[in-house]
Each structure stands twice: as structure tokens, then as C-alpha cells.
């Protein structure tokens, strides 16, 4: 909470003067609408499977009202649940129409919410059980010092230890660092499948001198595959990596590496 927000609140709610800190701590305890609902159910000593929607809805709305009075930001998630509760309540109160859907069992409008609450409660408790374990780096420690004889040793092989998130994050950080104009065309969505296709074509061209368009789409003759392959070829051509040939009009499309592979020497130091 910012200092201004605090100030603001004091002006408007002299009643709660001096208790804001504790109070906001309480409000923060609710990890979303499901958590608040569970609290209300417990507080009213209700059975989750047979909650009084009227009581819960009233208290839930009062709570949100209070949050607003305290100038706390009410997250959209809380409002979504408020709407759900009001909807269930109104459905419960609607006169039951026997004529229209006689074959369908009268479903309890609360059923879906009850199911979600039960499931949520399960995971909330599972979280507490997990959190109560002795954690490495908090209650339990492993040896941190490495053995002197191993310290000196360099390792080149061995399994790699890196996560996908780290890879994407490295790319994200890099993009923040470099000017936008040099990176205007960041692969949107599915264009990465074109990358798969490019990779595939170039691999094939390392094994054989020429490749036919048909060869690439033979195994998977779908509209998507043909389009992606075609786009991959255009891209390869644009990048001057391949040359395209066509024997005759509507004839077979061939492509070859733009540069013969025998002249391949590594350009690394």
C-alpha cells in the first residue's frame, strides 16, 4: 500500500483510524474469490455441499463493498465471482417451469460452484501440506562447499542443466537490450513451424544434392503442410540458401543448395 493510499483512506474512514494496517493484512489473506467463499462458508458453519446462496452472496457482496470503502483495489476476479453468485441466486429463485423441460432432472444451480469449491479446497489444503514440509535452504541444508580436487576440474561433457523458461527469458532480456528496429519481425505464432520445415529441408540437402517439392509433402499431404513447406522454400530462397528450378510449366519443382557443400569449411576461430 502506498503512502498516499494510506492517507486517502484515513481521510475517508476516521472510524477505522489506526487499524488499517491490521485490516489490510486480513484482506490480503484472501487469495481470491474461492478463498473468500470458503472462509464465509466456514464462518457460517455451512456444509459446502448445501450452502445457502442467499447468505453467502450477501456476505460476499458486503465484503467487496468493504474493500471498496477501504479503497482497496477489487480485482476483477472477485467481481466475476460476485456475478456468478448473483446468477445462481436468481436461477434458484426463478419459478420452475415443468412444461418446458420435463425430461431433464432439475439441476441444482449451485452444483458447478460446489464442485469447484470442493476441488479448490482440496488444493488449498494440499498447498498447506506441501508448505509445511522441511524445505531445502530453509529447514534443511545440503553441503555447499565443493571438494578441492573437483573445484579445479573443468568439465566439457555431461548432461546440460537448463530450462526452457531460461532460454525464452534470455531471449526476452536480449530483446529489451537491443534497439527495436533490428528485431522487428519476431516470429509470430505459427511461423515457427516454418522454422521446423526449413530445418528439415536443409538437412535433406546435406544428404542429397537435389530435393523435389513432392518429396517434402509426400508423407503428409495436408493443406497446412503444403503451405508451410511452400513458405519455407520462399524464405530459404530469400535468404539465398537454396536455388529453385522448375523443368516446365506446372512441372516438378526442384531445389538445390545455393552453395555447393564441398566448399564447406568452418568459419570459427
Amino acid at each position, binding site marked *: 500500500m502506498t503512502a498516499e493510499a494510506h492517507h486517502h483512506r484515513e481521510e475517508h474512514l476516521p*472510524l477505522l483510524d489506526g487499524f488499517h494496517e491490521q485490516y489490510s493484512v486480513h484482506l490480503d489473506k484472501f487469495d481470491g474469490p474461492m478463498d473468500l467463499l470458503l472462509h464465509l462458508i466456514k464462518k457460517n458453519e455451512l456444509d459446502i455441499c448445501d450452502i445457502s446462496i442467499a447468505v453467502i452472496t450477501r456476505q460476499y457482496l458486503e465484503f467487496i463493498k468493504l474493500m471498496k470503502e477501504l479503497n482497496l483495489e477489487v*480485482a476483477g476476479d472477485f467481481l*466475476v465471482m460476485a456475478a456468478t453468485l448473483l446468477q445462481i441466486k436468481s436461477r434458484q429463485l426463478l419459478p420452475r417451469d415443468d412444461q418446458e423441460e420435463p425430461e431433464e432432472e432439475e439441476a441444482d444451480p449451485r452444483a458447478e460452484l460446489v464442485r*469447484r469449491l470442493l476441488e479448490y479446497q482440496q488444493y488449498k489444503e494440499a498447498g*498447506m501440506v506441501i508448505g509445511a514440509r522441511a524445505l531445502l*535452504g530453509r529447514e534443511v541444508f545440503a553441503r555447499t562447499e565443493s571438494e578441492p580436487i573437483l573445484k579445479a576440474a573443468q568439465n566439457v561433457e555431461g548432461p546440460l542443466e537448463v530450462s526452457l523458461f531460461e532460454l525464452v527469458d534470455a531471449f526476452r532480456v536480449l530483446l529489451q537490450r537491443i534497439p527495436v528496429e533490428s528485431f522487428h519481425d519476431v516470429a509470430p505464432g505459427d511461423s515457427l513451424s516454418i522454422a521446423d520445415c526449413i530445418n528439415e529441408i536443409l538437412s535433406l540437402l546435406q544428404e542429397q544434392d537435389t530435393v523435389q517439392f513432392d518429396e517434402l509433402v509426400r508423407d503428409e499431404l495436408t493443406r497446412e503442410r503444403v503451405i508451410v513447406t511452400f513458405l519455407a522454400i520462399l524464405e530459404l530462397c530469400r535468404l539465398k540458401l537454396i536455388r529453385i528450378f522448375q523443368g516446365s510449366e506446372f512441372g516438378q519443382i526442384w531445389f538445390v543448395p545455393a552453395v555447393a557443400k564441398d566448399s564447406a569449411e568452418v568459419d570459427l576461430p
Partner: protein
Amino acid sequence: MNSELPSIIESLIFTAESALPVDRLCELLGEFERDQIKLALAELVAHYQERAGGFDLVEVAGGWQFRTRPVFHGYITRHIKTRMSKFSQSALETLAIIAYRQPITRAEVEHLRGVDCGGVLKTLLEKHLVRILGKKDIPGRPLIYGTSKEFLEVFGLKDLKSLPTLKEIQALDAVPQYERQEELQLEPDKVIQVENQLPLE
């Protein structure tokens, strides 16, 4: 059996960077039979259990590692900074959902929790407790998440199967326990009273 084998294994586990799986032990000690290695390991485990000293030999994240016994953490933190801060309830909830329901999408987590989980998810990814498993083969190809090896390491779990089952957790709940959340009064005028008393039932 080579009488030195338990000591050799002990020295390897002791110097390993992280929990050492039996498979890797066997790989490192190619001159010994797998059965011999497993027997020697069992001997070591029994020794440390019986001795109950400053540290134990425990199985975590599919491997073996020496770890201090939790009772001594009060002394250890006098010279070692705790790496892990306490997890927030929302982090634990999200972690539990991912652990029990993996592979799972962000939308599925959010549906279960009823709140936006982007921030929590990002923190869990940054802490390496959760990882991206790939993309789901449904329209939109959303990312799918699962728990990582670090999750098992941090929470001291042998594998995902050693997580308490949800049934077991429910059974725990059947036993009456004190309300973890203090009462929250909704009538503003009563709030002050409650705050002052704070009696836990």
C-alpha cells in the same frame, strides 16, 4: 563384497553437486555389480538413521544426498542465510495444483483458483520450481506446465508419487483443527473489537 564399497559410495554422494541417482552411481562404479551397490547403499542409510547425527542420507528427486536434520535449522541459520523465503498461500496453492494436475495449462490453474495466476506462475518459473513442458495440442496451443526436479529437491520429495495423495490430505482435514484464518468481521463497526481480542478458537 568389497568392504570399502560403502565408503566409496559415501565419498561419491558426499562430493556430488546434487542428489546422486543409483543409476549414476552404477555408471560411476562400473567395476561393481548393481546389487552390491544397492546393498552397500542400504547399509549406509541404516548407519545414518541409527546414528542420528547432524545430517542424514536421504533420497530426494530420484537420487541420494546428505542433508542436515531439520531440528538443527535454528543453529545452521546462524551462519547460513536461508535461501528460501516463506511461500505465500497463492504460490503454494498454484504449486499444489500444478504438482497434482500436471501437465496443466495456465487457464486450467486459473479456473481452479478463480484468480489470475500469471504473476505467481512467473515467480515459480523463475524459482525453477515449475517448468514449461511444451504446448498442448488444442486450438491456441497453450503452454503446459509441470513441476521440476528442483521442486522435488526443495520439498524433499523422492518423486512425484511420494506426494501425499489428495485422499490422505482430505483425511487430515477430517480431524478438527484450528481455523488457520482469523475471524474476519464484515460489519465495519465490529472490526475494531475483533482486532483487539484476536482469540483463536
